[in-house]
C-alpha cells in the first residue's frame, strides 16, 4: 500500500464516516445523556431507515422525499418505543430491545438481505455533482452542510424553554414534575427526536453507499456511545453547547483512529467488531479514571478551603 492511497482513503473515508456518525452520536446522546436511557433500538433503526430510503428511491420516490419519509417512519418507531415504557410500563432498556427485535422483520422484508440502488436511480448527493464534478467532494460537502444544520438546530432547541424542560425531566423527575413539566410527554418527545436523528443518519448512510444490508447498523449504539465518551474524555463536560461541539470533533478522532487501524497490514475486517469493543472499553475506562481523579481533586480543594477558614 502506498502513501498516496492511504491519504486518499483517510481523507475521504474519515470525513464521510465522521459526518454520518456524529448524527448517530447526537441521537444516542439525546437518549443516553438527556433522557438517561440506553436505547438499544438504534442497532435496527439505523439499517431500517437506510433500507427504507433506498427502497423508496427504487420505487420511484424522489431521493429527498425518500429520506424524509424514512425519518418520519423512524420517528414513528421512536414513538412506539417510548409508548411501550410510558403506557405499558415496560422498562426502557427492554422496550428498546423489543423494538430492535421487531424491526428485524421489516428490514428483512424490505431488503431480503441486501438492497442496492437500482440502476438509473439517483440519491440526494447527485445534485451537487454538477458543481464539483467529483462525487466524493459532493458527498462530503452536502454531509457537512446537513451536519452543521443539525448541530445548530440541536443547539437552538435545547436552549429553548421546551428543550430545557426535556433536559430537566431526564435529570430530575421530582423537580421537573414540581415545576409543571410533563415528564412522560418529555420522554416521548425525547425518544422521537433521538429516533429522528438515527433515522436521518441511517437514511443518509444508505444513500451515501447506495446499498445497505440488514446488518449495516450492527454496533451503532456502541459507536454512538464511544463518540460521546471520547468527547467527554477530551473536552470535559463544561456546558451543553460545548458537548454538542465535542461530539463532532470526537467523531472525527474516532474514525481517524479506527480507519488507521483498519488499513494496518494484516488487519482483517473479521476483527472489526472486537476492535470497536476494545476501543470503547478503553475510552470508558479513561473516562471513569478521569472522573475519579476530578472528584479526589475537588475533595482536596474543599478540605483546603475548610482549613483556611
Amino acid at each position, binding site marked *: 500500500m502506498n502513501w498516496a492511497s492511504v491519504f486518499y482513503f483517510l481523507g475521504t473515508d474519515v470525513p464521510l464516516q465522521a459526518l454520518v456518525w456524529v448524527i448517530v452520536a447526537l441521537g444516542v446522546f439525546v437518549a443516553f445523556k438527556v433522557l438517561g436511557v440506553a436505547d438499544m433500538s438504534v442497532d435496527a433503526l439505523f439499517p431500517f431507515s437506510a433500507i427504507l430510503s433506498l427502497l423508496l428511491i427504487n420505487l420511484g420516490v424522489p431521493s429527498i422525499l425518500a429520506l424524509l419519509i424514512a425519518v418520519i417512519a423512524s420517528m414513528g418507531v421512536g414513538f412506539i418505543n417510548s409508548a411501550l415504557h410510558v403506557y405499558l410500563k415496560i422498562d426502557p432498556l427492554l422496550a428498546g430491545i423489543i423494538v430492535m427485535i421487531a424491526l428485524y422483520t421489516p428490514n428483512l422484508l424490505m431488503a431480503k438481505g441486501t438492497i442496492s440502488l437500482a440502476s438509473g436511480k439517483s440519491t440526494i448527493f447527485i445534485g451537487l455533482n454538477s458543481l464539483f464534478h467529483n462525487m466524493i467532494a459532493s458527498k462530503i460537502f452536502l454531509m457537512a452542510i446537513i451536519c452543521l444544520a443539525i448541530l445548530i438546530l440541536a443547539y437552538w432547541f435545547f436552549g429553548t*424553554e421546551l428543550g430545557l424542560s426535556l433536559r430537566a425531566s431526564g435529570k430530575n423527575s421530582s423537580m421537573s*414534575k*414540581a*415545576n409543571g413539566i410533563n415528564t412522560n410527554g418529555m420522554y416521548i418527545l425525547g425518544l422521537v427526536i433521538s429516533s429522528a436523528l438515527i433515522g436521518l443518519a441511517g437514511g443518509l448512510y444508505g444513500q451515501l453507499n447506495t446499498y445497505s444490508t440488514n446488518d449495516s447498523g450492527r454496533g451503532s449504539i456502541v459507536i454512538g456511545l464511544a463518540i460521546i465518551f471520547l468527547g467527554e474524555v477530551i473536552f470535559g463536560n463544561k456546558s451543553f453547547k460545548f458537548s454538542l461541539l465535542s461530539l463532532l470533533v470526537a467523531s472525527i478522532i474516532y474514525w481517524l483512529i479506527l480507519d488507521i487501524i483498519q488499513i494496518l497490514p494484516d488487519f482483517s475486517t473479521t476483527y472489526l467488531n472486537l476492535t470497536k469493543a476494545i476501543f470503547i472499553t478503553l475510552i470508558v475506562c479513561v473516562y471513569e479514571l478521569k472522573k475519579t481523579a476530578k472528584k479526589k481533586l475537588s475533595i482536596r480543594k474543599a478540605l483546603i478551603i475548610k482549613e483556611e477558614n
Partner: protein
Amino acid sequence: MIELKNIVKDFDSANSINHVLKGLNLKINDKDFITVIGSNGSGKSTLLNIIAGSFPPTSGQIIFDGEDVTKTKEHQRAHLIGRVFQDPNTGTIGDISIQENLAIALKRGEKRTLRWALKKEYNDIYVRQLKPLNLGLETRLGDKISSLSGGQRQSVTLLMAVLKKPKLLLLDEHTAALDPKTSKKIMALTEKLIEDNGLTAMMITHNMKDAIRYGNRLIMISEGRIIADIRKDKKDKLTIDDLYAQFDKAEKTED
C-alpha cells in the same frame, strides 16, 4: 382557601393494606403558615404528597379556591404549588447552571414554548432575588448548581418555589439535611420569603422548637388523623412539653 375533605389513603403492602390517612379534614386559610408535626409513619409526608399530586388519595377531595384538583396530576397542578424537598439535590438539578434551574422555575405550570429559556431580562429578576441572600450567587448565574453547598442549593430551591407566586408553599422537612447553623439561616429565609410575598405555607418539621416558633398554626398528626390544630394565640404559649403531652394523650386514646 384550600380544603382537604375526608382524605383517605391506603397503600397496598405485601399481604395487608396499610391505612396511612384515615379521613383527614383540613381548611387552610389564605396566608396561613401551618407547621406540621407527627411521629414517623403518622402520614404527614403522605399528606404533603397528596396535596402536591404525587399520587392520588384513595378517597376524598382536594379543593383550591373552589376548584377540585383531586384528579389532576402533579405537573397539572404545579401552577398552584411551590415545593421544597428534604434533600437539596431533589429540588434542583446539579448538572445545569443556576440560571437554567431558575429559568425552569420561572415558568412553573406554564406552557413551555420554543422561546429561549435564558434571557437578559430574566437574569435581572434572578439577580434581584438572589442578592438579598448574601451568598454571592447573583454573580455566579452561569455556575453549575453542583458547585454549591447544601445550604446554598436549598436557598436556591426556596427561591425557585416562590419565583412564581404559588397558592401554597409546601416544605417537607426542608432543613433536616442541613447542619444547625445553615438550618437556622434557611428557616430565617423561609419566614422572610413567606412574609414578603404574603404566601400560604405548610411546613413539615421534626424540630419542635421550629414548629412552635414559626407560623400562625400548628397541626399534630397521629395515626393518619389530625389530633390537634393550635391557632395563633394558644400557639404562642405552647411549650415543647405541651406537645409531648398531647402526643402521649393521643397514643393512649388510640390504645
